[in-house]
């Protein structure tokens, strides 16, 4: 879960975007590291059958059972066809919804709440979910809100966005049960909000 945050490209772009303000970079890296480990700690001992969708588990088992009977190229093409069938609809629908919301929801509506230390955090989390921007450039996107939004809300935006957004949930839905995704989304939301509020009120 932390991979989109804890990689050299994201760290460098965040550092460049928020040059001179190490709080954002530091809290983003710490937040990503902490939230990923917290999720791992919670689900580390969970059984696969509790987390994965039954049809996904079945397809994996069928794949393993039939592996020895066919050539590698044929197996690769079967996998290619099957993966595309589950991934492409999820990707297109997720991207479509994200695009529609980007066009349909005026950004001014979201920005009205930017100055309040508590509301701004929630607003930026909603914006991260809606905008679905990849983590390598989201720091530049967040930079545009530096003057109008609190620093903590930017930290929440940069921590929550790479872990949870519309496109990603749509893709993860092909593998994980809805209940698990709801739980993970709730936990990441609360923890990302906590990090933002700590920056706003304690630092």
């Amino acid at each position: 879960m932390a991979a989109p945050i804890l990689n050299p490209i994201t760290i460098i772009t965040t550092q460049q975007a928020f040059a001179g303000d190490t709080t954002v970079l530091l809290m983003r890296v710490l937040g990503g590291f902490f939230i990923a480990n917290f999720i791992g700690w919670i689900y580390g001992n969970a059984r696969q059958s509790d987390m994965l969708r039954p049809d996904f588990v079945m397809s994996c088992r069928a794949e393993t059972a039939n592996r020895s009977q066919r050539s590698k190229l044929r197996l690769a093409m079967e996998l290619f066809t099957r993966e595309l069938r589950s991934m492409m609809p999820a990707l297109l629908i997720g991207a479509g919804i994200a695009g529609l919301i980007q066009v349909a929801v005026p950004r001014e509506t979201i920005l009205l709440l930017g100055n309040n230390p508590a509301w701004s955090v929630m607003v930026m989390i909603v914006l991260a979910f809606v905008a679905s921007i990849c983590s390598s450039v989201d720091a530049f996107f967040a930079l545009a809100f530096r003057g109008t939004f609190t620093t903590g809300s930017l930290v929440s935006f940069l921590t929550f966005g790479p872990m949870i957004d519309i496109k990603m949930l749509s893709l993860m839905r092909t593998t994980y049960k809805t209940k698990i995704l709801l739980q993970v989304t709730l936990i990441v939301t609360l923890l990302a909000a906590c990090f933002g509020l700590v920056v706003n009120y304690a630092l």
Partner: protein
Amino acid sequence: MRYKQWLNKWSGVILVLIISINIIWLFCEGKLNWYIHPRYEIFAVVFAVLGICLSIVALAMRPTESHLHSLRRREWMGQGVLVLVAVVFALVIAPATLTAITATQRVVNSGALTTGSARESSILKERGDYINFTIKDWASLLSQSNDPSLYEHKPVKVSGFVTPSGDDDVYFVSRFLVTCCAVDARPIGVPVYDPGWRDKISPDQWIEVSGVFSAHPHQSQENRTVVIPSHTQKIQQEDNPYVH
């Protein structure tokens, strides 16, 4: 029943073919940069070609399903609708750039434009003369300070599309600044003071404006520094409508 199974099985491959053809078509038309930063064009095209090649191999080999299940009505119909929507959006509807509506919605010059503070002297050294400053240069300087005394009488020549501002007498000559793709596009612009501009030009029209910077004649708080145009000319949309 057979076509339903066929559609369900191959829908992913068909979607990859549609999107890949769309990417290559846009690239050949020179319009792929309307959606992604030019530095990613080759990357996208290479993977589109790879996607087409693999899809053709998959179709030619006709891999057998190892775990066929009974097909529900909503499953194959959903796949069919998605393929149809993808065809319409990727291959039928003409490609288009972001417009003044999006610029207004995302608020022109709503944030910092560069990672550091671009200095006027260093830009001037690079460009040679104020007249060569780009719209990004001016927008970057104006975002740092819009004190009219810093810009008074400096010549400006910029091109872009017209975006209305909150002031009826002022419009923006604007562009979108793209960092990665159209999703992160941020509108930037130079405010132009031209009472009655709506009688001559309409929003989204591409124009080239020459003039000088001056204080807003009515001391607007929002746009303290504006361009007083000496020459306004309608132009065609540029091949690369965005700035990077």
